[in-house]
């Protein structure tokens, strides 16, 4: 937690929920907002209303942003999580493995660019042992799991986002098919 204009604001990945992290990501992805407006919206989201900044100088505002962005520690991949009495596993063995099937589903979720894609992405990765593949990838099941995941801490999401980003960047083909030149 950091204190901004006298208010306690969660800023660490083990303090923010996945839902808050999604909301912050969406604010930063909004091209209609400039950098200051984005920070103001993030602070508002986390409990510091915009009106509180009315008499704040730009230097003080910059300091608030700096304090907020000061993250400590680097969260590690959590192989499994517990929700509603069930264990969900993202991968077997020692290292994270991203299957073709998961990637296809993740790509579909990311392509839709809807606001809750981070939780859905995790919902695709984390699987219950007692369910079949068909049940696991069923849309309703993914949505339900994503809803539960949004209440977990963002430290769960970030390492996976990094891993997936790196893996996709490495594997994704970049060329488009050539067209006949008329």
């Amino acid at each position, binding site marked *: 937690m950091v204190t901004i204009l006298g208010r306690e604001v969660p800023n660490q990945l083990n303090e923010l929920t996945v839902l808050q992290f999604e909301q912050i990501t969406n604010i930063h992805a909004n091209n209609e907002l400039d950098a200051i407006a984005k920070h103001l919206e993030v602070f508002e989201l986390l409990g510091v209303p915009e009106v509180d900044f009315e008499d704040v100088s730009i230097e003080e505002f910059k300091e608030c942003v700096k304090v907020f962005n000061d993250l400590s520690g680097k969260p590690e991949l959590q192989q499994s999580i517990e929700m509603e009495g069930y264990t969900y596993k993202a991968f077997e063995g020692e290292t994270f493995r991203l299957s*073709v*099937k998961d*990637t296809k589903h993740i790509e579909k979720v990311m392509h839709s660019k809807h606001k809750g894609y981070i939780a859905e992405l995790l919902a695709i990765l984390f699987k219950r042992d007692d369910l079949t593949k068909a049940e696991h990838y069923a849309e309703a099941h993914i949505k339900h799991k994503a809803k539960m995941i949004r209440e977990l801490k963002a430290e769960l999401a970030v390492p996976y986002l990094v891993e997936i980003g790196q893996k996709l960047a490495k*594997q994704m*083909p970049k060329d488009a098919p050539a067209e*006949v030149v008329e």
Partner: protein
Amino acid sequence: MHLPKSWSEIDVFQFKEIRSLYTIEETFSREIEILATLADIPSDDLEDLDISEVGDMLKDITFINSEPSKFYKHVLGEWKFKPLSKLTVGEFIDLEYFFANDYIKHISHVASILYRKHSINEWGDLVFEPYKYSPFERAELFDEYGINEIYGIITEYLAFRTTFMEKYELLFQADESEEEEEAIKPANSQDAKAEQEHKSAIKWSWERLLYGLCNEDLTKFDQVTDMPLVLTFNMMAMKKELNI
């Protein structure tokens, strides 16, 4: 798993199948489907692999992002490529249909019009079989040929078409201005009716042309479609220019 290394290992059917997969918007999913098609396996067989494993395979098939060879064979088995300068009106109209409706999807249909049975007549001249068959019935005979053997007919026809359209620009101008008008939204029901009539006119433009060339006598339909394309358009251009 055997993966082809270049277009020279791909037949027309596979080529069409691969190109049809480009309707899949998600890049990775599309590449997986293409990979499965090339390996001739269900894409489900790849789904449990790690993406780094398929990544290497995807690197092996980057040739799919290039065009096949622009050359084409003039003789394919019993078929011989009919020079485009010798096209008939009927052949041209059918080719235009296929080119207007996705020429990649219809490359076999295009090939079935341009590759023909042939013989030498009593005067020692090369004679092509008449266009009395349906390209829809014959198209699949060309699916098994290598894509590199026939892909060049597409570029060849497109180049011919460009020159042809430029040469007979006057005859095609009316259609172009009609297309521009089409973009204007109708202001009232009368305009809407006019637009509908106009759309119908475009829809039936080739039929209208043939009907005119037949002098409204449909028994002459085959005679007209068998007429040499260039001669017919020369005569039409003359009529238009002299307003006769």
